[in-house]
């Protein structure tokens, strides 16, 4: 067993044990009270005993585990409590899960982003379970007058073999609340897991398939008004004026006003990025009435900065690709000298457009601001940051701001940015009423915070034996410099140069599922295929050769490379075996591998026959994310990520004319649909017992390259420009 100090979140354990020493904890959150099924109500205990901020044990042995992090469809609401339950040693069927409110005293990092919930929560979640188990054991030891270390636990039952004593957790829960929080606790050995590593279905599954209110948009409260916003129609414009009188008298409309979301001098958090400083609010009794008023309202806007078009972004990025950087991000050896003596040189440029997040549930938030307190409820990935700006904007102390999280109808990075939380709070304060702010799909899609538009140029040199001797990459993005200079193949090529540029634009951008990786992986791994072909080598073997180099004789300081070449090669070898790579299947196939967000993923994509854009028939995917907490949920997440990568690279784009978004709803912005989705997907995991890492993002980036490499095999064309459906590349050779 591993002995760990209970230092992480210890404050939480102590503080809450103290608070709960009276024993009884009552009151369920709004969400929990809405979602209880009849079975759950029948099995509810009479009393709950809170052993620490993460969990409470009922007198009947039921356990409620708080899920600290926002749930955006990545399934942490199931996986995180599984980790607590494992160390607590309770049967999963006796666990109820509740979404924790924002509470920075108890929980660390209540944020969904960067695929980090599981990785960074791992230790504290285990400790929360183990600490409570330890306290239950101590309580039993006192009750039975036996040494605690002779007591064993299993499925929520404490047993002392020698004396024949046995009790359920529920029976010891009350006594356990007065047990001192241990200084250190024992964690289970990996081999002894009984919940971790087993398939557990989505804890909200039943509520989802029966249409229960789970999402922010489903919040309806007594006396609540609906609010919508009107934002500038184009980037580079700002509010000038309006005549709202006619609209104010429309049926159901309560008020129409202009307001400042971010007045001069207000202290902003990074999560306020992309926020529009001034907006118009329409407040009314119902959504449809607000939508009608929105259509009739005429607002005057004025030009504030340059009106940018897609053609401008593309030209400016292309120009940056021709501009050497004075401060290269990484430089090993001498690429110029190596290119001068190379037997073969391969050179290609790849590009991708802006993308909108398009979470299925548009942005929304409930706010009820009174002079005494601000109550906020809704879908936000970064509640801790939103709380600070709300406090600053409303001029209220932090303690008076309460943020609760709902389940979210998708995140993909969009809900990291919470200007809509501030907007809701300001509107509620002004109206002196509870309101729910609702973005229409059009508001949501044209508001900004997009995945940046990117271009990257690669140049590779091969010697006469087909060895890679030089690699030069120069990338540029809008509001983002593109390259991860220390990722593969850095460290595997003697002469390596990485340069990056950022083009400042007024079209707002933000993190979009697997930021940067979502483009650069597709480009790099497609280019790798071109280089392997020029070298006359199998693309998968060519990559393995490079990893051998990075393992055995790395270029530069291996610490500098932010990947582990053995684990990288590991997923490629696994996918090679599972896909039977090299065998003739009669199908066009492509391979790619990528490392991001601490996990390694390799994929082989196999296409159906025929057409300019043949459909994906099969994906064989190998993943190394360390210990897999919930294989079922992990596979679901990996499938979703790959479909996301394939869908967006094939079909989706945002474009602009004079700053005005040209796509505003799903009639003009194309998303992948049923008949375009891969037919079969299989996922294999590397079994290595390493601490777990996240899965929200890592499967997306390589899918784009595995697809374009397969498309090349199927069509003889290399696709360089996303979305591929609009690209008409020439036949190669």
């Amino acid at each position: 067993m591993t002995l760990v100090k209970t230092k992480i979140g210890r404050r939480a354990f102590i503080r809450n044990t103290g608070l709960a020493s009276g024993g009884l904890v009552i009151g369920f959150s709004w969400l929990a009270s809405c979602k209880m099924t009849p079975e759950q109500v029948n099995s509810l205990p009479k009393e709950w005993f809170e052993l620490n901020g993460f969990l409470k044990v009922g007198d009947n042995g039921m356990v409620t585990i708080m899920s600290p992090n926002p749930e955006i469809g990545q399934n942490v609401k199931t996986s995180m409590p599984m980790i607590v339950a494992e160390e607590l040693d309770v049967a999963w069927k006796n666990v109820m899960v509740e979404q924790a409110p924002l509470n920075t005293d108890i929980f660390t990092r209540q944020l969904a982003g960067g695929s980090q919930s599981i990785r960074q929560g791992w230790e504290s979640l285990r400790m929360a379970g183990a600490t409570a188990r330890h306290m239950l054991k101590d309580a039993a030891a006192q009750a039975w007058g036996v040494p605690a270390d002779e007591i064993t636990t299993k499925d929520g039952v404490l047993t002392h073999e020698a004396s024949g004593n046995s009790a359920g957790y529920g029976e010891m829960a009350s006594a356990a609340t007065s047990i001192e929080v241990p200084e250190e606790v024992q964690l289970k050995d990996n081999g002894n897991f009984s919940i971790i590593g087993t398939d557990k279905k989505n804890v909200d599954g039943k509520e989802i398939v029966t249409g229960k209110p789970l999402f922010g948009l489903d919040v309806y409260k007594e006396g609540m008004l609906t609010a919508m916003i009107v934002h500038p129609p184009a980037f580079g414009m700002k509010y000038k004026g309006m005549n709202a009188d006619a609209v104010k008298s429309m049926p159901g409309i309560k008020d129409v006003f202009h307001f400042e979301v971010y007045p001069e001098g207000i202290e902003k958090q990074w999560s306020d990025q992309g926020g529009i400083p001034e907006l118009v609010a329409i407040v009314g009794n119902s959504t449809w009435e607000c939508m009608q008023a929105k259509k009739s309202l005429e607002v005057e806007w004025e030009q504030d900065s340059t009106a940018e078009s897609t053609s401008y972004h593309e030209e400016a990025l292309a120009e940056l690709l021709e501009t050497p950087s004075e401060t290269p991000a990484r430089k090993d050896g001498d690429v110029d000298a190596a290119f001068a003596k190379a037997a073969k040189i391969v050179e290609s440029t790849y590009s991708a457009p802006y993308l909108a997040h398009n979470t299925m549930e548009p942005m929304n938030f409930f706010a009820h601001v009174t002079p005494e307190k601000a109550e906020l409820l809704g879908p936000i990935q970064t509640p801790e940051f939103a709380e600070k700006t709300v406090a600053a904007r409303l001029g209220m102390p932090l303690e008076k701001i309460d943020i609760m999280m709902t389940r979210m109808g998708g995140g993909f990075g969009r809900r990291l940015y919470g200007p809509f939380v501030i907007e809701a709070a300001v509107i509620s304060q002004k109206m002196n009423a509870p309101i729910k702010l609702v973005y229409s799909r059009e508001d949501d899609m044209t508001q900004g915070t997009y995945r940046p538009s990117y271009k990257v140029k690669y140049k590779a040199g091969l010697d006469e034996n087909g060895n890679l001797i030089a690699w030069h990459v120069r990338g540029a993005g809008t509001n983002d410099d593109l390259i991860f200079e220390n990722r593969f193949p850095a460290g595997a090529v003697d002469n390596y140069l990485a340069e990056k540029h950022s083009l400042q634009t007024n079209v707002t951008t933000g993190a979009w599922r697997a930021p940067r990786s979502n483009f650069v992986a597709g480009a790099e791994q497609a280019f790798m295929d071109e280089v392997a072909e020029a070298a006359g080598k199998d693309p998968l073997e060519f990559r393995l050769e490079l990893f051998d180099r990075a393992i055995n004789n790395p270029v530069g300081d291996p610490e500098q490379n932010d990947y582990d070449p053995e684990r990288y090669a590991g997923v490629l070898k696994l996918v090679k075996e599972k896909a039977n790579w090299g065998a003739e299947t009669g199908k066009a196939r492509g391979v790619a591998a990528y490392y991001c967000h601490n996990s390694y993923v390799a994929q082989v994509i196999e296409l159906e026959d025929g057409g300019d854009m043949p459909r994906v028939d099969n994906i064989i995917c190998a993943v190394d994310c360390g210990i897999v907490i919930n294989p079922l949920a992990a596979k679901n997440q990996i499938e979703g990520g790959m479909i996301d990568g394939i869908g967006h690279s094939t079909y989706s784009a945002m474009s602009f004319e004079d700053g005005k978004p040209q796509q505003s709803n799903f009639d003009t912005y194309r998303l992948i649909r049923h008949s375009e989705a891969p037919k079969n997907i299989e996922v294999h995991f590397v079994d290595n017992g390493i601490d777990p890492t996240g899965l929200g993002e890592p499967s997306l980036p390589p899918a784009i390259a595995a697809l374009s490499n397969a498309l090349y095999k199927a069509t003889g064309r290399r696709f360089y420009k996303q979305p591929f459906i609009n690209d008409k590349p020439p036949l190669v050779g």
Partner: protein
Amino acid sequence: MATFTLNINGTKQEVDVDPSTPMLWVLRDHLNLVGTKYGCGIAQCGACTIHLDGTATRACMLTVSSVGNSEITTIEGLSEEGDHPVQKAWLEVDVPQCGYCQAGQIMTASALLEKNPNPTDEEIEMAMNGNICRCGTYTRIKKAVKLAAKS
């Protein structure tokens, strides 16, 4: 404003709303039936799918004044205990990711199976193509539809 008597999930319900109001907002804002979701408002995403006399229909473009005596079924009325074969299959296959689109997917799938109890893969895809899932649960949806078809 006008009064409409609607037949929803087997119960008569009266609402006083503007005749142009789409059923989506009547259900959500006025009848507290929030299982029917808003995704696009222009019949492109399927999140708002309900049954109108048994046919899968987008509630966001169906005005309350055009419903008349037709029978409306929403996700809340698909089954009493959440045990419709399609709902059961959805749980069995663990379809949902974020879950937001799923009520619409289930309503389209259940209407399909009512008319065609043994659809081929192509028929499933054609019927379901109007329902977007941003989380990419498509492969599991197809699996679940086939599982429901068997039961």
